[in-house]
């Protein structure tokens, strides 16, 4: 579904990604971890070309992401993206945040789009909050709306960049519950997270990055119990003590 072939990313003098190679199968849930500044976010953001890659090849669902002939806007509609900071549109209600893509991009009639958006919101327990503006929602509610906004577009792939890092501890649970349900479906998921329990439970594979390189790919149990790479060992050891 997603194939990285020696993907590198350079900003002027900073090498953010160095020859990352790996592939993610359809329906696979990949948990991306590593210390901060290791290139996790950058890697996730190359998949929908929020970051252009400098060299290498990145093929997503059969499409070469760097290909200039690709209609990037249509391509992105098939990939849900959820960021740490939710980034809901503050001038729209929760319902409108979810329906705007259906209505403006997928050209669904407004009523249909809103009905579908409502259905999605109800499924995550936000029906009563549908007509509230983001400013009136809690962090956990905002992030659930953001996830639903991405899901409503019926993507094949979900990219999640630390979806729970900006949440107060008591709100992490509600978002993780939602992500658990997601992971059980047949979505292909690439998720940056520091939630180890979550990673263990729902991840099919852990990708460990450091210094812009993908250093280890392993099933969660093996990764957390006996990491192979020295940097991964340090990382896991630090987590155990934290």
């Amino acid at each position, binding site marked *: 579904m997603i194939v990285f072939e020696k993907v590198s990313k350079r900003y002027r003098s900073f090498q953010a990604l160095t020859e990352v190679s790996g592939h993610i199968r359809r329906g696979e849930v990949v948990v991306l971890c590593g210390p901060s500044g290791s290139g996790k976010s950058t890697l996730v953001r190359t998949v*929908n070309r*929020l970051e252009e890659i400098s060299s290498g090849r990145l093929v997503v669902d059969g499409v070469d992401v760097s290909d200039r002939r690709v209609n990037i*806007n*249509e*391509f*992105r*509609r098939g*990939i849900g*993206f959820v*960021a740490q*900071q939710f*980034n*809901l*549109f*503050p*001038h729209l209600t929760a319902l409108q945040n979810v329906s*705007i*893509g259906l209505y*403006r*991009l997928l050209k669904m009639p407004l009523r249909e789009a809103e009905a579908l958006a409502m259905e999605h919101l109800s499924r995550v327990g936000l029906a009563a909050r549908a007509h509230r*503006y*983001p*400013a009136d929602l809690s962090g956990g509610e905002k992030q659930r709306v953001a996830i639903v*906004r*991405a899901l409503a*577009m019926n993507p094949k792939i979900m990219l999640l960049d630390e979806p729970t890092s900006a949440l107060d501890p008591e709100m992490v649970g509600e978002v993780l519950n939602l992500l658990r349900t997601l992971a059980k479906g047949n979505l292909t998921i690439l998720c940056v997270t520091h939630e180890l329990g979550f990673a263990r439970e729902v991840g099919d594979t852990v990708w460990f990055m450091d210094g812009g390189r993908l250093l280890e790919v392993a099933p969660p149990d093996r990764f957390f119990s006996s990491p192979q790479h020295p940097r991964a060992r340090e990382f896991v050891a630090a987590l155990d003590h934290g």
Partner: protein
Amino acid sequence: MGYDLDFSVVLSGRYLEMLLSGLATTMLLFVSGWFLGLAIALVLTLIRATPFKPLQWLVAAYVEYHRNVPLLVQLFVWYFGMPQLLPLSVNRFLNQHNAELGFAVIAVSCFMAAYMSEDFRSGLRAVPKAQREAARAMGFSFLQTMRWILIPQAWRIALPALVNQTLHMFKGTSLAGIIGVVELTDVARQIEDNTFRVFEAFGVVTAIYLICTLTLMLGGAALSRRFQLRT
């Protein structure tokens, strides 16, 4: 002191009619200038938001000309300068069709557009970058992102400044009298010329301007309350 205030002269008969028609002209100039200005401002804002440098400089030059040259001079440039560049037949046509008002509308809307586009631009800059990214990641194109996500937030942020600009421009329409547009201030001057009723003529006009600007201010405040952007 032998000055008896007497508004009845100014507020009846021919002079009342002149005042009303002056008010109508001022309104026409203001409303058409405002909407045309808004349209130009949006185009300028869009151009300035693209990454294409030479076009951005062109817009910057446009904005600086209109912000740094007095509106009166701009009116003169349009009214006295433009006809020199146009063929005689066009001029003849314009002169038969209220050229003064036409050029005044153009001058005022170009002036208004420069200020409005600056307000939109600072509004746009105040919208967090992540908003643009969230929209692009969903599959909105550059223009769709502008139209549905960024500009709706930018104008809410820019609203107080836009209201201010609007008031500024409303009063600016009074300069059009100098190139021969018979608007409210020009009417006051004519009435004063004919009647020597200085305080009455300008008093009534002042009251009319005040009523209009206060209405605009209240309208602006109501819009701000209704469309307040909370984050």
